């Protein structure tokens, strides 16, 4: 997209990460009493994208742009092992849930502000 929505792109990407993470946390809480279940978490990590390698046939060709790409990665995380081999700690999961929810709401507010600024610029008042 154009430069106009550059920031919004990044913010919405992060917001969707928090929405996906909430789902994973919900799945952990739902399985808090399932034997042998190991809790999962989602990590937002930056990966240097070096996949794009175009062949240069002429020295005047512009070299391809290397972009920072973000990727979601699922990791297993257990903190506490109960007697039934279930590693879900409901308190911890609820804390993560609150964190995700607050971050999501903040990002939505930021997006609203961004759109508001754009609208202001268009209307001129």
């Amino acid at each position, binding site marked *: 997209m154009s430069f106009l929505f550059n920031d919004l792109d990044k913010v919405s990407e992060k*917001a969707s990460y*928090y*929405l*996906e993470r*909430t*789902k*994973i*946390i*919900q*799945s952990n*809480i*739902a*399985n*808090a*009493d*399932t*034997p042998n*279940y190991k809790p*999962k978490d*989602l990590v937002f990590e930056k990966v240097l994208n070096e996949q794009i390698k175009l062949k240069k046939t002429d020295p005047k060709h512009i070299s391809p742009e290397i972009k920072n790409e973000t990727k*979601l990665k*699922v990791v297993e995380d257990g903190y506490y092992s109960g007697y039934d081999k279930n590693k879900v700690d*409901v308190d911890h*999961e*609820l804390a993560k*849930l*609150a964190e995700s*929810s607050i971050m*999501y*709401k903040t990002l*939505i507010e930021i*997006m*609203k502000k961004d*759109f*508001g600024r754009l*609208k202001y610029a268009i209307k001129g008042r």
Partner: protein
Amino acid sequence: MLFKGLEISMTGMEAQKVRIDIISSNIANVNSVNEKNGQPYRRKVPVFQSILDKESNIPLYKVKVAKIEEDKSPFKLKYDPNNPLADKNGYVKLPNVDPLKEMVDMMSAARSYEANLTAFNTHKNMLIKSLEIIKV
């Protein structure tokens, strides 16, 4: 896809509800004999199982009650020679239900239900919050 999170918390609440139902039936039958063979009632235990949701691109697990098993622990014996069900030595077999254990289980199930409900509400509020973007 959008409401997957709500669906997963729903399965969690349903499973805990089944668990509460079984606990209620155990407590209700603390002095019962089985209707088929005349033996004492055996305590029932639900077995939870996680199911991978294949439609999602991240590993989400629903939960379900896979089966309801019988507790194989021995029956309680009570000396009561006047009871018609008593054996030669005057002992009556009673169900292997421990009311205290059932109460603890019930508390745990109620708390798990609440945790699932909290997760459900949080996710719902997040989805409603995202609607505010179009109000700008």
